[in-house]
């Protein structure tokens, strides 16, 4: 057992630091141009623009430790904004289940950040029970296209998306999980209507998407008809063993500690308040534990082992920690935390803190609510099987 980075890993860490420092955004530069150029330079490093893609598709082929180093370093450096929908959610499905023509057609634009995707999974009556989805896709008699009708909900950034990857129902017979088909649908067409949903934080991020008699060519079906659930489920498992945002949370906590030290309280600062201080300490200890849980999980992945039981808890712990950081930011804002939006009152760092906190309540709901995660751990890790009802 040891926690040292190898000399190769240390050299890699140095290389990453240099790359991030050299290509940091410079004040006054054109952001959009800097962003695209950053991805181009990252690509020239050998797949640093698609760090999680397999080598066969242009990824860097990093070890788990290298991924961890990348995550640590990018948590504290400024990197361009990026969206996970095409890059991390659809791309792996296309790589494993799409045909070559689909891979050639969609992957390059995803990689170049040219096309924005959104995810059409949840429906008004299919939330945690996702397999209950009802959006209908009917194959034409000549087998050339599907006609899709139904409603998707909580669709993040559907209002700026060019395409949606959708789970649709092509059959009602058999188990709910059977008869689900994975379709790729352009957003900008008649029959698709996007309605904004404003969330508690006051922002427009998610939407309701109505599809009415939308024609989808059969070439846009990924894999076989009726097998879509398996493709989507594989993706969800992949997501859960991913990183839990620990490095970002460690950086955010460090920041919060500095800022709390600037909030005056009596003759001292908020950091002198024993109860606030204890909450920061408890949060940091949870982070130290979760960081090592993640490292244990990465180390077993590096040995080629299946993710151990410890990896199942990362999403749960990681999102709860992110919420607690938001809550402590609100607390640091004091009386000004009541000001709506980012009004120029109170401490700069705490402005909009309440919005951030309210938005963070969704972290333990999306991507599998915490209660569903616990159901999954009970079944798959603790091995609890439902007994026969008498």
């Amino acid at each position, binding site marked *: *057992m*040891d*926690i*040292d*980075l*190898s000399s190769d*890993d240390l050299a890699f860490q140095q290389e990453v630091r240099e790359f991030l420092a050299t290509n940091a955004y410079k004040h006054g530069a054109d952001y959009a141009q800097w962003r695209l150029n950053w991805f181009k330079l990252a690509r020239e490093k050998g797949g640093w623009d698609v760090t999680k893609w397999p080598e066969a598709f242009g990824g860097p082929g990093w070890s788990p*430790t290298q991924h961890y180093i990348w995550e640590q370093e990018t948590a504290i450096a400024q990197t361009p904004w990026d969206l996970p929908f095409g890059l991390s959610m659809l791309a792996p499905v296309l790589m494993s289940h799409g045909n070559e023509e689909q891979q050639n057609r969609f992957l390059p634009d995803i990689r170049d950040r040219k096309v924005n995707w959104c995810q059409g999974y949840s429906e008004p009556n299919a939330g945690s029970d996702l397999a209950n989805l009802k959006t209908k896709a009917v194959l034409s008699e000549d087998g050339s296209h599907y006609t899709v009708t139904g409603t998707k909900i909580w669709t993040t950034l559907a209002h700026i998306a060019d395409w949606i990857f959708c789970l649709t129902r092509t059959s009602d017979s058999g188990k709910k999980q059977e008869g689900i088909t994975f379709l790729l649908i352009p957003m900008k067409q008649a029959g698709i209507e996007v309605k904004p949903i404003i969330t508690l934080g006051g922002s427009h991020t998610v939407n309701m998407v109505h599809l009415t008699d939308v024609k989808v060519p059969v070439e846009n079906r990924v894999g076989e008809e009726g097998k879509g659930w398996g493709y989507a489920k594989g993706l969800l498992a992949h997501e859960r063993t991913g990183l839990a945002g620990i490095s970002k949370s460690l950086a955010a906590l460090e920041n919060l500690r500095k800022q709390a030290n600037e909030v005056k309280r009596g003759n001292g600062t908020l950091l002198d308040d024993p109860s606030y*201080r*204890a909450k*920061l*300490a*408890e949060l*940091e*200890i*949870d982070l*130290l*534990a*979760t*960081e*090592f*849980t993640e*490292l*244990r999980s990465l*180390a*077993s992945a590096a*040995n080629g082992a299946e993710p151990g*039981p*410890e990896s199942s*808890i990362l999403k*749960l*712990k990681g999102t709860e920690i992110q919420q607690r950081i938001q809550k402590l930011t609100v607390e640091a804002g004091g009386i000004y935390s009541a000001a709506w939006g980012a009004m120029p009152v109170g401490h700069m760092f705490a402005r909009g803190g309440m919005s951030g906190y309210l938005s963070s309540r969704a972290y333990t709901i999306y991507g599998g609510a915490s*209660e569903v995660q*616990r*159901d999954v*751990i*009970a079944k798959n*890790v*603790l*091995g*609890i*099987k*439902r*007994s026969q*009802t*008498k």
Partner: protein
Amino acid sequence: MNFDISSEQQILKDSVDRFVQDHYELDKRQLLVLTEQGFSNENWQTMAELGWLGVSIPEAHGGFGGNQIDTMILMEAFGKGLVLEPFFASTVLGAKAIADGGNEELKTQMLPGVVDGSRQLTFAYAEPQSRFDLEDIVTRAQEDGDGYIINGHKSMVLHAASAHQIVVSTRTSGGQADQAGISLFLVDADADGVEITSFPTVDGQQAAEIKLEGVKVSNSKLLGELGGGYNLLNAVATDGILALAAEAVGAMEILYKDTVAYTQEREQFDHSLSDFQVLQHRMVDMFMEYEQCKSLLYRATLEVVQNAGGAQRSVHALKYYIGKMGTFIGENAVQLHGGMGVTEELRIGHYFKRLLVIDAQFGNSDHHLALFAA
């Protein structure tokens, strides 16, 4: 970065797991608890023969020359069996103080006996007024010719009645709560003026109050620096915390797994208890906190072994978390076993008691949270 144990450590783990399985069924353990000594001489000899009693003692003195990772492997297994033999008091605490702080002659005189099991040590650091502060010491050692005379009262000394020598923290200068002015001495348990009053602890082990009245020790029995003993005291406490945490992790594993098994067997309302989601989620939380404790155990242990910068804070984090979650897992294991959970008949109550005692040793959860936050 690597979390696998070496092949040598795997052999150690296999042999200690087998020992616990063969010798530590609850019924056998509870018979040992009832004996005056509170543990088995036969087991003690087995531990010596297998080399465990010298696991962390330097090879030059007959030991195995291992580090805190080797101790962790033993203690985690002992936690799964609620092992009673005084390995913790003698090897982890007493021998550490001598190996790190004793002069060569003293080490040669004391350590081989610890390794072969003929000599048993213990460590007296707490006092009635000190609560959890290592540096709060009023037991005084006063210079007297070529030695010292010790007067004072030490609390909750583990297995003192069967120990041959006791490491005692004393004050040779400074005020009651100063880190400076602390000196550690090795005192013979049968020396004139040493009065040992033994009693059982909640978890079936043995401890004692020790009164020291005019106890003479020679200069050669000084461990560490005169007046500068705090660092040695803290180093021993650090190893103690790591070892207790490993034992706690072993005990937590039994508690959560026994609970999962029991709720699947027990039927009420025509269902296995494990069908009820509220119980499933509780057990998932017990499992998650067990894994988090294990992560902090690895973190603190590896940082101490590698002398990393954040090691001291990680040790505080570990002891805080073990205490808090030991109580959480123990209380819920009892709760989910229902009425059977509060009987002596099932083993879970005994593991719960051990976790409660571990929380109270070397600073409880609140104490270490305060130190971490400081």
